[in-house]
């Protein structure tokens, strides 16, 4: 009887097969330029220019390897773009960095608070232009920033700085020298994009609405930092738009985000493109944890 029941159930299951999925064609978004920017105070303004790619892109890696295919790189990375920044009536042209395709830098662009910076990028391959405007906000400085080393593997960072009047947003980044570098080679003024130099460990976005005083004091647990590391900590006063851009990215990522959230449209200030151009000044502190 049990055997008969088994075959009956199996028969029903066999007949009750899942139907073939229906295909659906969705028009891909037109290819556009993407802007990312970074500033090392009084040293470098860098802009990374890439292109969007289809949601159904399947040729990212060389088959059977983890290496990115050249075809994909050619599709996404923008070389030979014309990139300029206009401010105080001056136009600076950013030049391509040979070692990092798609990256354009200027070593002569000054950080001037309250000044409006206009970025223009032209891609000769797509024949597309994008532009973005960012006003550099007044710089902020740490009053104090110091680590609390609890043990070899547990380090907390405490910081305190004065908040400006009105609604403000801040970005705190923590970098550490890569394992290839020692203290002697750590150069906080070197270009942070340079591979093998400084590595971004943690980003903290601060919205002063949660603080009732005219100063901001807090602490964070540093992840991936040990007591023998040297770290660089930067603090920047950023615009609300850039704050929202970075916040939205944080929501996209993670397992929770994939299954339990509505789709997130990441904001942009790039006209006719994506990403964000942000001009800001930053206070930088280098901390050798061995001293604590």
């Amino acid at each position, binding site marked *: 009887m049990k055997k008969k029941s088994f075959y009956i*159930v199996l028969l029903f299951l066999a007949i009750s097969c899942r*139907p073939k999925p229906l295909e659906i064609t969705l028009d891909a978004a037109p290819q556009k330029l993407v802007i990312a920017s970074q500033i090392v105070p009084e040293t470098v303004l860098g802009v990374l220019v890439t292109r969007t790619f289809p949601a159904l892109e399947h040729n990212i890696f060389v088959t059977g390897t983890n290496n990115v295919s050249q075809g994909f790189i050619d599709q996404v990375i923008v070389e030979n773009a014309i990139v300029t920044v206009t401010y105080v009536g001056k136009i600076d042209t950013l030049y391509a960095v040979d070692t990092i395709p798609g990256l354009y830098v200027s070593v002569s662009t000054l950080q001037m608070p309250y000044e409006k910076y206009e970025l223009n990028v032209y891609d000769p391959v797509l024949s597309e232009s994008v532009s973005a405007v960012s006003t550099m906000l007044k710089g902020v400085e740490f009053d104090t920033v110091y680590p609390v080393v609890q043990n070899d593997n547990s380090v907390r960072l405490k910081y305190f700085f004065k908040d400006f009047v009105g609604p403000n947003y801040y970005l705190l980044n923590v*970098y550490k020298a890569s394992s290839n570098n020692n203290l002697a080679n750590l150069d906080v003024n070197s270009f942070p994009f340079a591979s093998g130099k400084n590595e*971004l460990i943690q980003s903290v976005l601060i919205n002063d609405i949660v603080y009732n005083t005219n100063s901001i004091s807090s602490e964070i647990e540093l992840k991936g930092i040990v007591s023998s590391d040297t770290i660089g900590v930067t603090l920047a006063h950023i615009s609300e738009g850039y704050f929202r851009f970075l916040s*939205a990215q944080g*929501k996209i990522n993670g397992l929770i985000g994939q299954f*339990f959230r509505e789709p997130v449209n990441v904001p942009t200030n790039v006209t006719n493109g994506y990403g964000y151009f942000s001009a800001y000044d930053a206070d930088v502190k280098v901390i050798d944890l061995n001293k604590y």
Partner: protein
Amino acid sequence: MVNGYVFDSISKESLIGVSVLDESTHAGSISNAFGFYSLSFKSDTAFISFSYVGYKTVYRKFKITNDTSFSIPMVTGAVQLNEIKLSVVKKKVDNGAVLGQINIDPKKLHTMPSFAGETDLLKIMQLMPGVKAGQEGTNGIYVRGGNADQNLILLDDAPVYNPGHLLGFFSVFNNDAIKDVKLIKGGFDAQYGSRLSSVVDIRTEDGNMRKTELEGGLGLLSSRVTLQGPIKKDTISYLIAARRSYVDQLSKLIKFPVPYYFYDLNAKINYKINSKNRLYVSTYFGNDILNISQDKIEQYGTLSGFGFNLLNSTGTVRLNREHSSKLFANYALITTGFSYDVSGQFTSNSILVRSTIRDWGGKADYNYYVSNKHFLKFGFSATAHVFTPNFISTSGEITEFIKSRKPIPIYITEYAAYISDQYKLSKRWMINYGVRASGAIVQDTPYIGLEPRLSLAYQVKSNFSLKTSYSRMRQYMHLVSSSTVSLPTDLWYPVTKEVKPLYSDQYAVGAEWNIPKTSLRFMAEGYYKKMYNVIQYKEGAEILLNDNFEQEILFGKAEAYGAEFFLQKNAGKLTGWVAYTLSWSLNYFDELNGGKAFYSKFDRRHDVSIVMNYAPTKKWNFSAVWVYMTGARFTAQIGQYFVPNASLTDVNVVPIYTDRNAVTMSPTHRLDMSATYFSPQEKKFKYELVMGVYNLYNRASPFVVEIGRSSNGSLIYQQPGLFGTVPYFAFNFKI
């Protein structure tokens, strides 16, 4: 006055909605939810007819001296075509200014095609105009642009928060225990409130007062049994209906254990205290259990235990009292509960999440038969709700990410008072007007609002009427979904200081035509509904286990409009209906979609249902259901780009989306068929053999868009369906 109760002659079951007509003046009434009717007469002789579909029309002459009480037994029987036409015509006169109301006879459901042989009340409602289905196979209903949490589902006056078993694939309602179902989607009488879009008023059987009956059924996934009978003949009766699924037992047979099952139990006592007082005590209890433990889950990897437990319960004590020949009252004490536990254990970590809702309330409803022209309803209610969401207990490393916590219960008291008057202005004009005052107190914040109601009917001819209605509705709680897909673990939350009550204004116009010399009835209705303080979540909002979800909420407006058409044939060998709905549903939120209006997920433009029953003989019945719906809407990813971190040592992949809900999935269409054999009805043991197939041509009903691979390795968008062709059989019996 002549009044009394109308009931089934064999079981003594009260009959709801019987048309009671003064044959001399054609003034009339309808028996209420407890089978009570009342008519007044000027002369000392009354000639009354009582008609009800499925029963032989009864004619009675009464000599009236004072107020006369006559209770009328009605006999089931085949009704002649002309008799149907007559009773339907009269019924339409007597139904008054009723728009947007559908009555469903649950006794006829078990021969209709169904999913895995489980004919489901809520799934049948999805075949009605203006009512849309959600995800395939589930019984969520979306009525006239309203979300699934805007439907008030009542079981003997008690609200049901979670009407689904098995993640919503079956409803909690056992058809054998159900006597009457009314779906109201517009033209709401003032006695109804608390939800914006619909009321599903379900009444259970009272229990056979004369003899013991046993009925039940065996299906592919579950079985049921119902026992009812007299405790004391003509005085006290009982009913017990139980149901259990056996997915867990079936899966053992194929050596792939799925330790899930559900069961439910309906119980009722009906006590006729005397000719003027009747007491009902009814209760429902249901449970969904999934219990995956270590010894059963080798195939689940490091997961050592997982389970959930969903508990649903209702309880009602009702007293019907005939205060006078004109005044009928129903007093009720009501309790409702819903809770779920979700637990998991993997390696040395464990988590338990528990949420509960408990209601305690009471109400009094009065029917006052002023005259044959005036029928007043009035009443009041109060309900205390206690919401205890997201009790969490964790242990192990997981405590670093999710801390144990005891939530603070949220108390809210909801109250209402109403009055409505159904007034026959003239031979052709009927008006139903009223007002409901409702409110709530939560976190020391009071809310109060008025809900005016108005319905107007004009009888153009005896078989053709025009109707219009306006309703304002208010709602004091909503369903917070923990994901982009509805789950039974979605939480009901009340309004708070920050979250204001929802409210809506609905306008409708319609026409109803009983086509002469046929048993065809045609209805057309147009509606426009505006909803305020509706809720959506901020982009990227985290709702899962987040008690501060109020920070993630956005408030906006919604708008829904459309036209519904319904053609029904309800007599003869071939019966059934065709329903078509053309509708739009839009949202307006300043912070979403760049401030532009966007369609709701369930904005499905065309919705067609064709239902056919063919009974060539008394022994056979063949049924077919074909449904078509425009695809559901979603927000599609159509591109992506890289954003590097500040040190260029990592990148985020950022998706590019269309406008919110701008894309439509492929349409859904499906054919279900069944054949039922009836045993000879004169025998004491009666049975039915039902054979059928769900989704005959095996078409996927898309419920999601995912990325898959084509045969050449390229990525494609595809839309899977949940269920293919599912054959089934069922055996129903009655003694």
